[in-house]
């Protein structure tokens, strides 16, 4: 989030696309409804389903799954053609606008209607609604990202906010809600295969930086890899790791995967989950660390699995990072119960037996405080260095002193600081940054410009135009020594920059000049390293509109995409819709969480949502001869099939079927209840919705396309 949950209280309008907070983020709703009531702010809900948010919204827009980019570029175009864009903001703080405008011009209201199904007049109406009620807070969640063009879709969201001039302002921003109290923390620590913690990447420089932080010899780390080249290569992703085992698509690694370690992982959140089962049965070793046995624990048929019961968040402590970039301290409530052990404890034992405890714990004597200290010292890219465990705990103890509207402490021991010291928090005397890219405040008081990340000048291939990427003259935070754009700080300590200077002299130098360590640049509409430099619509891989596949085809197939060949063009078959006529999309329900191992093991939550179901429009139900509560078979083009209860509802339209994805413990019609270790069977089992989600992965991030795909349905 560029802003915070609380800051939504200042929005004059809100747009949610692929986000359903009453079910996925209920706590956020108090601020959303506050803005609706206090500011008379319209809530625009863009979703294939009439969600519980739509019930609370003022304007509901039903889009066809996977057409979010077309809709957004349509809004951008409508804003520009009507002259509603923020010309001052665009001329001073944005780059590549002219090039983007050319691309957006294609998405007229009529074109958008054809692609998305949203009436043309509604496109212009919503654009006007947002333009006349600024600032707008824009929120997306996985409904926006989980498409093969997810990276383009989210960029289109950002571009809309730039065009409306809503960035760096209270009540505006791009506010992506994260799943629980530490998803942002997990992201910041890059629990992903393409980067070291804090977005440093996998270059030699990145490894050397972290080796300095860990105080471990770089050559030692290098010796842990088969060959040095593997240090710099992206690994498999969570969405396709099983291809490293089953190899249905060609892999680029010297060996197939032989073991998998799942630590707090809901495995049935993987798309094409029936293929994951094949991997379970081929692996030499599977380890599951979780408070409850996950679906992995029961699905495999080979004797290759260890379950390590870990304690819950209430039985341990440590720092966590919230969706608003605030760092909080979780205090232990009780000692671990039953035979469970804390994650720290399991990790310590594992590291000891693997033989590198000395290196691992070099800076860590006091758990968990020293972990927070170490990761903070290294994560300079995102300003994790100012939030010491002592400061974090002080904030927790003085909750009541922080203002609900702007999150700032008024008086008391945290006077002037923002709750949780939202990152970047550049030093021990920095208050945290409550709103990113806000040039109305001095840097030392939580202000920031846009980051200088992509050079100072760029030439666009589509136009041949050269443009300075730094902010215009006069655009800077109050008190900045440089009265306009400037590059990032480097060579204050020779050979280092603000990200790699562990003495933090570079950061302090910038702060003393009232400037941002990362420079002051423009936000860019053109990303020259992406296949679509400016976001465009491409039809979902499995599209219900063969005519549009021709007009908006997908990408060429991509070789070695996170170590596995990934099909695009060769997978997009215009004939597929004949056999699989319905669009499948998935999502959350408020009662269950993630893959559901924990919540389906809670008797009260299980009681509230005891059955896996598919939402089916009354017309679809009547056409296939099914009544509410009867069972249906749903099948995917990949050979997955599930038997679930029909929930007949107008939440979905007659071309779409919706599945919640929290269920597990059943597999393609068979119950696995008897396979759980004694006494651990969840109260509720059901088919994983992800057995039906289709092939398809984002071209940049490889996130799976669980929000669009095709399926067929019949009465069971």
């Amino acid at each position, binding site marked *: 989030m560029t802003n915070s949950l609380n800051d939504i209280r200042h929005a004059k309008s809100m747009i949610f696309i692929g986000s359903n907070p009453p079910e996925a983020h209920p706590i956020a709703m108090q601020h959303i*409804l506050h803005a609706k009531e206090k500011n008379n702010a319209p809530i625009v809900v863009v979703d294939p389903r009439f969600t519980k948010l739509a019930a609370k919204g003022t304007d509901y827009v039903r889009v066809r799954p996977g057409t979010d980019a077309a809709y957004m570029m349509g809004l951008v175009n409508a804003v520009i053609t009507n002259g509603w864009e923020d010309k001052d903001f665009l001329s001073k703080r944005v780059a590549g606008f002219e090039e983007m405008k050319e691309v957006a011009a294609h998405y007229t209201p009529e074109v958008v209607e054809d692609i998305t199904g949203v009436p043309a007049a509604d496109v212009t109406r919503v654009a006007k609604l947002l333009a006349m009620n600024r600032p707008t807070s824009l929120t997306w969640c996985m409904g926006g990202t989980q498409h093969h063009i997810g990276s383009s879709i989210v960029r289109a969201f950002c571009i809309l906010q730039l065009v409306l001039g809503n960035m760096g302002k209270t009540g505006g921003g791009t506010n992506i809600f994260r799943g629980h109290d530490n998803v942002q923390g997990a992201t910041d620590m890059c629990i992903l295969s393409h980067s070291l913690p804090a977005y440093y990447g996998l270059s030699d420089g990145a490894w050397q930086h972290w080796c300095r932080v860990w105080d471990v010899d770089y050559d030692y780390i290098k010796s842990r890899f088969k060959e040095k080249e593997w240090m710099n290569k992206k690994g498999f992703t969570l969405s396709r790791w099983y291809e490293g085992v089953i190899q249905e698509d060609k892999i680029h690694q010297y060996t197939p995967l032989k073991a998998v370690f799942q630590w707090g992982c809901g495995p049935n959140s993987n798309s094409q989950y029936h293929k994951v089962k094949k991997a379970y049965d081929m692996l030499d070793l599977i380890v599951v660390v979780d408070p409850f046995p996950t679906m992995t624990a029961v699905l495999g048929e080979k004797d290759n699995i260890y379950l390590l019961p870990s304690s819950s968040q209430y039985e341990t402590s440590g720092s966590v990072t919230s969706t608003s970039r605030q760092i909080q301290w979780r205090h232990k409530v009780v000692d671990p119960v039953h035979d469970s052990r804390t994650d720290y404890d399991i990790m310590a034992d594992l590291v000891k037996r693997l033989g590198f405890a000395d290196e691992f714990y070099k800076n860590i004597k006091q758990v968990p405080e020293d972990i927070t200290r170490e990761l903070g010292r290294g994560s300079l890219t995102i300003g994790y260095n100012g939030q010491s465990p002592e400061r974090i705990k002080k904030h927790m103890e003085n909750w009541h002193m922080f203002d609900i509207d702007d999150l700032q402490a008024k008086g008391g021991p945290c006077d002037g600081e923002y709750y949780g010291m939202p990152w970047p928090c550049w030093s021990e005397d920095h208050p945290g940054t409550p709103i990113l890219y806000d040039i109305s405040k001095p840097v030392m008081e939580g202000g920031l410009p846009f980051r200088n990340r992509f050079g100072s000048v760029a030439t666009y291939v589509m136009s041949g135009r050269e443009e300075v990427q730094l902010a215009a003259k006069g655009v800077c935070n109050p008190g900045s020594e440089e009265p306009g754009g400037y590059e990032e700080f480097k060579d204050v300590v020779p050979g280092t920059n603000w990200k790699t200077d562990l003495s933090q002299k570079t950061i302090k130098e910038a702060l003393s000049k009232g400037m941002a360590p990362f420079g002051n640049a423009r936000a860019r509409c053109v990303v020259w390293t992406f296949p679509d430099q400016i976001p465009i619509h491409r039809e979902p891989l499995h599209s219900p509109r063969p005519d549009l596949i021709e007009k908006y085809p997908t990408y060429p197939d991509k070789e070695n995409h996170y170590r596995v060949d990934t099909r695009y063009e060769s997978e997009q078959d215009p004939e597929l819709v004949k056999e699989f006529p319905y669009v499948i999309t998935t999502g959350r329900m408020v009662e269950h969480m993630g893959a559901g191992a924990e919540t389906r093991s809670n008797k009260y939550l299980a009681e509230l949502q005891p059955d896996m179901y598919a939402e089916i429009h009354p017309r679809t139900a009547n056409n296939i001869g099914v009544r509410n509560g009867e069972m249906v078979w749903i099948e995917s083009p990949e050979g997955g099939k599930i038997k679930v209860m029909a929930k007949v509802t107008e939440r979905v339209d007659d071309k779409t079927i919706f599945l919640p994805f929290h269920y597990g413990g059943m597999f393609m019609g068979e119950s696995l209840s008897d396979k759980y270790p004694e006494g651990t069977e969840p109260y509720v089992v059901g088919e994983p919705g992800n057995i039906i989600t289709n092939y398809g992965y984002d071209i940049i991030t490889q996130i799976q396309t669980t929000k669009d795909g095709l399926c067929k349905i019949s009465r069971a």
Partner: protein
Amino acid sequence: MARMRFLCDVERCIDCGGCVVACKEGNHVPVGINRRTVVTLDEGKPGEKAISVACMHCSDAPCIAVCPVDALYQRDDGIVLVSKKTCIGCGYCFMACPFGAPQFPKGTFFGARGAMDKCTMCAGGPEETFSAEEHKLYGQNRIAEGKVPLCAGMCATKALLAGDADVVADVYRKRVFQRGSGVNAWGWNRAYTKK
């Protein structure tokens, strides 16, 4: 003496069921017994509304009027409670209640219902306050601790309000005033929207 009341603000209720789960977890209510429930109207359609319902602790409560053994009674603060030791499980209160609040642990055909259970507004029961017996039969006595009931305490959007009727009314009045003031005034949207 303050009068205790519940108020569910339908503009705020997001149908999350947090109130239901808080009540059950905190009072160890068995599965199948719902002291509180969230009712959804027009689900999936424009105009969808949700409302959290439990015993409303009525003035002139019909359950008290119909109880043949005087198991139900009203405290001075308006909270309606049942003595499970007196209740004969006849079910008259269930027929009389306009909100469907009374719950029965056994559901056999010929009337063996067991003693009635319902929302206590987290005020325990007729046994000695904070005694093990009170806790076992009725759950927590948060009112005696000076706390709001679990359901209202849990509510993410503060849709569900509970407590002194004057305070609850003040909170709600302020909200309605805010919603209805200035550009929010009823009819303005339709009448005066800029074209």
